[in-house]
């Protein structure tokens, strides 16, 4: 457990439809941005940059559960959903893609959410 923070650097993401960008201090704020955009536009969000150490050290894999397990050591109180989404962007996954995968895993009981938008493997 070395980090626990998601605030190492600004996170930048953009709307896939319009290119509108957002810069946030936490990765989970990008998730909040995604939800607000989806509510009004039904569009997805792509990552532009996320220079967080956990993201850069995360394995490049399509397997969300595997990536979550690898990130878990770094976050004592759960992996921020936005950090996981940023790590998955290395495989070209959008925020919406990762949230859909996470939802499926949750519904299958394969991960748990100790608090809202923070994940841990089962």
């Amino acid at each position, binding site marked *: 457990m070395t980090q626990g923070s998601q605030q190492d650097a600004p996170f930048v993401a953009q709307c896939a439809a*319009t290119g*509108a960008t*957002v810069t946030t201090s936490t990765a989970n704020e990008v998730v909040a*941005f995604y939800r*607000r*955009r*989806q*509510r*009004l*536009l*039904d569009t997805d969000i792509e990552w532009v940059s996320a220079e967080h150490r956990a993201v850069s050290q995360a394995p490049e894999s399509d397997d969300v559960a595997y990536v979550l397990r690898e990130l878990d050591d770094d976050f004592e109180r759960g992996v921020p959903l936005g950090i996981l989404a940023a790590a998955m962007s290395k495989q070209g996954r959008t925020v919406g893609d990762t949230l859909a995968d996470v939802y499926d895993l949750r519904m299958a009981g394969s991960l748990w959410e100790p608090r809202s938008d923070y994940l841990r493997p089962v």
Partner: protein
Amino acid sequence: MTRWNPSNDDVEAVSPDITDETNALPAKYFTDPNVHGLEKEKIFGRYWVYAGHANAITEPGAYFTRTIGDRQVIIVRDHDDEVRAFFNVCAHRGSKMVEDTPMTDPGNMGRIRCPYHMWSYDLDGDLESTPQSFEEAGLNPDLSDDDVCGMNASENSLSEVETDRIGPFVFLNFADDPTPLAEQAGTLKSELEAMPLGEYEHATRYVSEVDCNWKTFAGNYSECDHCHANHQDWITDIELTESELEVNDYHWILHYTHDEDVDDEMRIHDEHEAKFYYFWPNFTVNMYGTADGYGTYIIDPIDEGRFQLIADYYFSDEAMTDAEREFVQTSRQLQEEDFELVERQYEGLKSGALAQAQLGPNEHTVHRLHRLAQEAYEA
């Protein structure tokens, strides 16, 4: 004398007299998180708030959702062709029923169904059916089936939200006994309804998140003293000295006279000018004067320091022409220029240096905005 903090922090309520130095809303009303919570009730829970465009839902069962503050609403066209609104909350145990559905991508449903325990409602909000487990007491040894009286449809209907319209614009009001929309809108209603706004189709939507309080942008929209220095491309075709800002009870109109006459085909309205309508609290109608179409803005707060500008554009066809695309781009340029300005202003306000701003004599529209906010807080 400028009211700086901390040397002179004795702010006062917005003076009704614009020539007084306390003619602006104190800065704390732009930066205090508690004020954001207050506004959800005192402003967005009390006045008529724009929900969306009726053309988005033309068939029975067509719907979209809208979130205003913490309130989530379904706007649906019923079988009598009426646009109605209901809280997106099940009468059973309060579950959110329908997924967020933007006006730009509306859904259609034969009935409103809660996915939790499958309570279903007609499009007029009446409870239509419940599963059999609500009509018999098989799991409860203390009751017989005869003890279960069933659910009365109308007594267990959805909570309806007051709706009314100005032409195709659908508005909501969450107050128990709201002032009629016609009263809040005044002459705005007849003026907008005199134009064929319903004949235009939604073409595109831009949503921008901006780092300032929603009233900061509202104030910027409401005056053009800043235009000469900051919108140099736009004002090349505008005669600012001949323009006029008209203030009414709950709306104000910015009349911008064009330098040279524009073809009648390039306007919806008769006057040879651009007309920008601001309708308290957070809706605008933009009649550009140089496009056969119009735009609307919703200035939706996210929190005390951020808002979403939801910009919708309407033209004769939802597929825009090249000229219309170019027009929208010009409009977007104006927005971006304004975002820079209001974020700079908000950075200053957030610093806490200024206790109360002061308005100029030609910022009487902003004065009206600030007065309405003050009145709402005190109500």
